[in-house]
């Protein structure tokens, strides 16, 4: 018994002795997307004064914990409450003003009236059903003079994190430095604003179930055996690639650059290709899409058998937590499959 107590005590000792370092945790988990000083990037800017003045610590903590399903921001389910609070304190340190306090009490409003107001005042930026703006952050693929993307108000992570009172505060005062303006200034009454809050809260009840791709996403690769020789298969692939509106960039061996020229295994060939229009659109949706790039098909001849394979974009899509990108992955899965089918059948 004493031994068990000793083990547990020793295991917990670092947790008890050292308070989590918010700065280090932020650097390790957040800064790659949100910037070292919270200026934004793949993720939204966090240090914007009007943002920090209109969100409470609970909202920040719940956002870190639950993320935004399908909207890039992951859920940090493995961080302890103490670690999350330390990150929140670090973020709060960028503001000179004290954190606002919002209760979790529901605002009483007329959601039906709010729906009409929403269509007139909010849907242009936040989407007809609260689906939010397109794309991510303020990266090269997005105009830098737009400091923030309209959040998805129907996102379950947002609805879990936000209080009615916080939504109300944002509607009343807007957020300086963003396209979000005060609705009081725009002529709405406080009752109108309560109605809007009730409408936004109603998104929780009619949240759509996520659409699951029809293909098996446990398949890590798309693979097929070719009935042709290696050389014939490569030629077939070139024709199929062009046939699917891609530009063939290069054909080389899998070992290219890893061994001196001439020593590569010539039975392992990679075809690199691209559809720049498709790529550009994908980069607008998520700049991290480079992990799929460039489009490649690998052809290997071994023991008289020729195999053609590619990565399965659907298998990798879950890494990004980006529903918009999932659609591109589905398209790319179809294109890869078509190219391989054309070349091998």
């Amino acid at each position, binding site marked *: 018994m004493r031994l068990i107590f000793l083990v547990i005590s020793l295991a917990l000792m670092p947790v008890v002795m050292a308070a989590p370092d918010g700065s280090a945790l932020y650097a390790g988990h957040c800064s790659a*997307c949100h910037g070292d000083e919270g200026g934004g990037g793949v993720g939204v800017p966090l240090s914007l004064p009007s943002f920090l003045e209109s969100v409470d610590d609970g909202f920040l903590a719940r956002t870190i914990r639950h993320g935004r399903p399908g909207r890039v921001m992951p859920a940090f389910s493995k961080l302890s409450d103490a670690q999350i609070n330390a990150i929140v304190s670090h973020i709060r340190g960028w503001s000179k003003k004290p954190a606002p306090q919002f209760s979790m009490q529901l605002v009483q409003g007329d959601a039906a009236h709010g729906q009409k107001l929403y269509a007139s005042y909010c849907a242009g930026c936040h989407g007809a059903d609260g689906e939010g703006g397109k794309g991510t952050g303020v990266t090269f693929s997005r105009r830098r003079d737009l400091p923030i993307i309209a959040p998805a108000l129907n996102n379950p992570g947002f609805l879990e994190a936000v209080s009615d009172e916080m939504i109300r505060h944002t509607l009343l005062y807007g957020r300086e430095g963003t396209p979000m303006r005060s609705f009081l200034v725009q002529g709405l009454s406080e009752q109108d604003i309560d109605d809007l809050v009730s409408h936004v809260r109603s998104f929780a009840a009619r949240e759509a179930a996520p659409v699951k791709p029809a293909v098996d996403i446990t398949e890590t*690769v798309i693979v097929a055996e070719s009935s042709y020789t290696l050389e014939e298969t490569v030629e077939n692939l070139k024709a199929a690639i062009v046939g699917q509106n891609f530009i063939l960039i290069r054909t080389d061996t*899998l070992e290219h650059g890893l061994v001196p020229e001439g020593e590569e295994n010539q039975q392992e060939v990679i075809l690199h290709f691209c559809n*720049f229009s498709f790529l550009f659109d994908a980069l607008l949706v998520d700049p*991290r899409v480079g*992990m799929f790039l460039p489009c*490649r098909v690998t052809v290997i001849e071994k023991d008289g058998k020729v*195999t053609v394979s590619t990565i399965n974009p659907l298998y990798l899509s879950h890494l990004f937590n980006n529903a918009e990108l999932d659609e591109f992955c589905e398209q790319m899965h179809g294109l890869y499959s078509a190219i391989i089918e054309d070349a091998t059948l």
Partner: protein
Amino acid sequence: MKNRYLRVAVIALLLQLSQLARAEEMIMTRSVLPFPEAMLALQESITAHGYTVSRVQRIDIGLTGMGYKTDKYRVVFAGKIDEIRMLKEKSPLMAPYLPPKVSIFAEGEQTVLATINPKLYADIAGDAVDPVIFDRWESDLRSIFHDVNIAR
């Protein structure tokens, strides 16, 4: 008695390590350096860790060549030939994922790096490959990203 306490210490250490373990599937970091310097730091660290940079795919050059406006964006492929050969021999399903790569792109005056956590490859490779190789790749990648992150 001494062994008993040693065992206690080892178990405690393992419990601590398990608390630190993270199952991130994507590894990212940011460098305060502009793109060219960050790119140089990345390639130097890759080489210093014993890997060969086999190719740099210039995504931005292709895009601008086709008339699209974009900032700097490259994909760096790197590996060790003996490991690459072992993996494709033992697990042909790994071939399309080889050699491993890092995406590096400019974000204003700074640079962002992103890659798949090599631990994910263990699922792709299956039982034929000892996953210890992917643990080492992850450790090396984190070390490489750290080098780029602190480079000034």
